[in-house]
């Protein structure tokens, strides 16, 4: 299971990536949308975990661009906004939204579910 993590909160992204790695998930992490597109251009991923609000290319736009590169890529959004409204404004094609702070086991469970 190869996963790409994108979040502008660098320390959060690093910590989450380390924890996922400890649990045996092959994870790459970047801090911007541009880096994510570059990464996805060189490697193939089963899923991408994206923060919704990021400077520059935001999560929703990034999802569209990553899907252009790999239509089979599964997307999971992370958001600091906990309300249902924030989730409803997002992409219909996204596999799931998770509100920060997330439960690591729940994220892994969802990753396994979407990748199959």
């Amino acid at each position: 299971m190869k996963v790409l993590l994108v979040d502008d909160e660098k320390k959060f992204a690093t910590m989450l990536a380390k924890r996922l790695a400890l649990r045996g998930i092959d994870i790459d992490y970047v801090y911007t949308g541009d880096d994510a597109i570059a990464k996805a251009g060189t490697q193939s991923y089963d899923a991408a975990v994206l923060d919704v609000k990021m400077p520059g290319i935001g999560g929703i736009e990034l999802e569209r661009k990553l899907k252009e590169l790999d239509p089979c890529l599964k997307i999971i959004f992370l958001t600091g906004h906990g309300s249902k409204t924030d989730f409803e404004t997002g992409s219909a094609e996204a596999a799931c939204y998770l509100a920060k702070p997330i439960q690591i086991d729940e994220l892994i469970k969802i990753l396994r579910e979407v990748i199959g």
Partner: protein
Amino acid sequence: MMNRIRKIFGSIWPEFYRQDDKHLGHYLTFTDYRKIWAIGILALVVTALVPLLVVTVIHYRLLQKSVDSELILRAERLTSNARRAVTFFLEERLNALRFTVNEIAYDQLTDTDHLAEILRNLKLGFGGLTDLSVIAHTGTQAAYAGPFNLEGRDYSNQRWFIECQKHHFYVSEIFRGYRDVPHIIIAIKSFRPDGAFFILRATLDTDRLIQTLASYETGAHAEIFLINRSGIVQTSSKHHGEIFQKMTLPVPSYSQRTHVAMAEDDLGESLIVGYAFISTQIADTPFILMVIKHKAGMMQVWQQLRSNINWFVGFAVLIILVVIILTCSYMVNLLYRADKSKAQTMALMEQSNQLATIGQLAAGVAHEINNPLALINETAGYVKDLFVLKEQYQRDDELIGYIDDVLDAVERCGTITRQLLGFARKFEVKIQKVKLNEVISDVLVFHNKEAAYRNIKVYVDVTEDMPPIETDRGKLQQILVNLVNNAFQAVDNGCILYIEASPDGADKVRITISDNGCGMPEENLPKIFEPFFTTKEGNQGTGLGLAITYGLVKKLHGEIAVKSKVQEGTTFTITLPIRIGEEII
């Protein structure tokens, strides 16, 4: 009892008169409903009552003139008829004497028995004669027929004898004479066959003449009497002098025709005075016929009518006043209630807007806190993972670093919650010195994330010499939050927002919030501060944000203006006083 009366009166009294809406002052469209009410009543009273009163006065005058004309006409008719009657009375008797002297020879006239027979016949034919006498040219009475023995009297020096010699005819004034009885002498001069003249004289009974005059008196307010040309009353008058006294009114000037005029007596009472100088075809007379009508008495019907009109007009004026006052009170009250209801809605919306602002801030803060919380979560989770999955980290630098990260994240959360508490406290109504750059920073701190996410650049320029202003910080903060929100909603990603503040004269500051967003059509600009006006599609806007902002600026005794061009952007300019008193908030 008094309380009950006060309660009933209070329920009738219009709401706007109580002026218990001072807390809604800024949201009421009109501020002085009492003035509107008073102006409304005044305008309606002038419009309704002035024409009524003018028409009533005109009507009075027309009626007065009409009544006066009618009274004068009647007086003229009466004077003319009475004049004819008096003239006829005297003329008839003068003609009778003339017939007598022409038909009967002097010798027969001086025959006492014959003269008595003639007197009897004249009394039968005309009446009103007391005696009859023949006076020789010497002035000596030649024959006499009547109740008194006046034979042989010498009249040569009497005025009537001398006048009759001159004019051939004579009619005397009323006088008492030898008999001390009021009477009139009429005399006619004729000639004997030998050429010497003689005079046939008759004494007329004044009672007959007075009866004739009295028969023309109509009602208690009219008097008819005779005066001589010196103004001496010849037949008694009730109000203007007894017989042989001077008349209380001035003697009218000579006229051949009947005259009627308005006059006043000594007491100032209005009179209608008709007069005619009596003159027969045979001889002139010394009499002036006077017809006096007391106007007040004659006007009683008119006075009664005027009294009725006065009552009617007074009642109509009262009804009109009551209707106008009630209608004005009702209409102004309706207007006031509608205005008050709108103002109450606006005040409620302001409160909702404050709550919504706090809610919005809370959402922003939650987002801000969630990120460090997520970091705490992941870092703490990772530390736990290290302890669970590996066992060799007693003094591990990496582990210490991660714990520091946890502590940093907690510090971030603390900063954010302190800002939130500080922001919430600033909504309390309190006049204090406020630094504009601090307020603007406080407002923008919660928009930083969205600005970064949407790539919106926010430039703040507060001039260095900007003095702190005394104002209500919470309200100012709410104004700025509303306008910044509005700008964020109006601009596309990648646009620019400028917030500038600078002194405006010695006692004001100017804050401008400009964006280079979509702008607004010119026709919308006059309406954007109206409640419920919105250009946002669907249910995205309540149309109250800018209306409430407008109300808040007014509360701070400031002004707000907007300039906008489609596709070029919008600029809101707020001008606020540097100092504001707490009592006016």
